[in-house]
């Protein structure tokens, strides 16, 4: 969504002020939800890069959150600092994500979705069955929260600010990436890979890179998730979380920088805000999501853009996905 530069600065400053002030006056559970929002936003930013910008469907993002969470849990419960977990989980997720990208060089759309779904199942089975490493269904408990340069993040509000700081760094790095030539190449990959290739874009390397970076951000989210909940077990990283992350990207606005922020808010915070409706809250939530996605496939950001300048928004013309040739 493009606003005038001044309006963007004001809106950005207001959002930061809101996020900084939000935890004050909230009970620990409210602060936990805000922290969870920040963590899930990071994972959704990663998926938005892979799916929203580069157009590669993935149902394996939860697996990378799991890889990050287990890396953090295993290392920090053995006395390693959290930054070591960040480094290892990011590198591990990047490498595995790169490998997972190879099938995307051959298949797309629902075929690719099933490839990544199979990978997600594989990771879940490893987390559940390899007890010598992961403690299986018993999970790993007493995961410590880090002390950063003498600042203990043990209290919920401190850990929230820690999560917010990491989210700020991830957002800045992702913002740089999508405005860079790489971001432009990712978009070209999504919109028309054949034309992109004819213009010198190495679609193979960019596809792999989109998977690798998106997966690495899933790993970063996982490293934060483990000390947030302080107890992890395999079902937290099953397919349900992958679908939730997909929902966050689509509801927020796939391919929009701010999409994951709003999508994660809808997925993490909205169900809690709807609890006033007691037993009906999940029904209300489900209806909201169904109507939103059906009426506005470009998500909340797309809806806002449509409302802001209805006349200027042209329906994107479908681009042929064939070889671009006609009859001759």
């Amino acid at each position: 969504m493009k606003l005038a530069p001044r309006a963007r600065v004001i809106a950005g400053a207001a959002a930061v002020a809101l996020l900084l002030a939000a935890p004050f006056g909230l009970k620990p559970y409210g602060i936990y939800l805000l922290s969870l929002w920040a963590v899930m936003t990071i994972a959704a930013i990663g998926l938005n890069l892979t799916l929203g910008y580069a157009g590669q469907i993935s149902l394996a993002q939860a697996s990378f959150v799991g890889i990050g969470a287990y890396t953090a849990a295993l290392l920090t419960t053995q006395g390693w600092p959290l930054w070591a977990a960040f480094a290892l989980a990011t590198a591990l997720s990047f490498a595995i994500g790169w490998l997972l990208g190879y099938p995307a060089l051959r298949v797309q759309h629902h075929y690719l979705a099933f490839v990544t779904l199979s990978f997600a199942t594989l990771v879940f089975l490893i987390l559940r069955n390899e007890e010598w490493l992961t403690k299986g269904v018993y999970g790993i408990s007493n995961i410590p929260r880090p002390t950063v340069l003498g600042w203990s993040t043990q209290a919920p509000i401190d850990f929230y600010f820690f999560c917010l700081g990491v989210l700020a760094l991830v957002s800045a790095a992702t913002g740089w990436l999508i405005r860079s030539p790489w971001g432009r190449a990712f978009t070209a990959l999504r919109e028309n890979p054949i034309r992109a290739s004819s213009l010198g874009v190495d679609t193979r390397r960019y596809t792999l890179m989109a998977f690798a970076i998106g997966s690495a951000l899933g790993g970063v989210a996982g490293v934060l998730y483990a000390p947030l909940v302080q107890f992890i077990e395999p079902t937290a990283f099953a397919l349900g979380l992958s679908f939730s992350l997909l929902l966050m990207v689509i509801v927020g606005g796939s391919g929009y920088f701010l999409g994951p922020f709003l999508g994660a808010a809808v997925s993490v915070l909205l169900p809690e805000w709807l609890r006033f409706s007691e037993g009906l809250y999940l029904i209300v939530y489900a209806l909201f999501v169904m109507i939103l996605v059906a009426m506005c496939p470009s998500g909340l950001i797309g809806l806002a853009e449509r409302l802001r300048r209805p006349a200027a928004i042209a329906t994107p013309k479908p681009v042929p996905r064939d070889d671009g040739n006609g009859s001759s």
Partner: protein
Amino acid sequence: MAALLEVRNLAKSFGGISAVADVSFDVYAGEILGLIGPNGSGKSTLFNCILGQLAPSAGEVRADGRPITGMRPCDLNRLGIGRTFQLLQVFPQLSVRENLILAGQEHLGSMWSRLAGPHDAGLTGTANRMIEFFRLAAVAEERAGALSYGQQKLLDVAMAFMAGPRLVLLDEPAGGVNPAMLVDLRERLREINATEKATFVVIEHNMEFVMSLCTRILVLAEGRIIAEGAPEAVRGNRDVIEAYLGR
């Protein structure tokens, strides 16, 4: 004169159907070669085999004497060989300027240096010149998907020239373009050919356009070259007339 592009005995079959059969020709530096033929004669298939989008069943393609058969389109582009497609191929969600920057950015530095470098890859000036040259200044900030068909066609052609290619294969550049814009497009192509010494191979059904633009014409029918020569000579060739009108 040494050939910039050499095509030797190129063939492409789809199952039992032969789309291109034993085609050989040379493209010389600085010329504008027209490739014409009835629908289904194999022109675009030939382009796709030359440019790595399809693997030829037989034959060889060389650029500057170097074999390029089967090379990936992105590698060919970095060798200075560009193309446009028969159907519009712009990136609708990117602005006109970003489409142009994208079309040039992969020729600059390595993938990593592009990430660390400026967001526009230092190409805003070049893109602006291209925008002026193709008279797209009024829509430079618009998303390409919001442009008229003719403007998108101009953008499509402009993108092929962003990286300063030596050889461009244009697949029906005049298709769907209104007459006024067509004159403009022809002048732009002539000017690039004259000033940048760029070589073109042009597939086109618009005979007036192709005859007035090209210096030499190849005629393809049923996957084979049936005539070759200057526009005037080809226009009166009996085989060509028969291929278009039937016996």
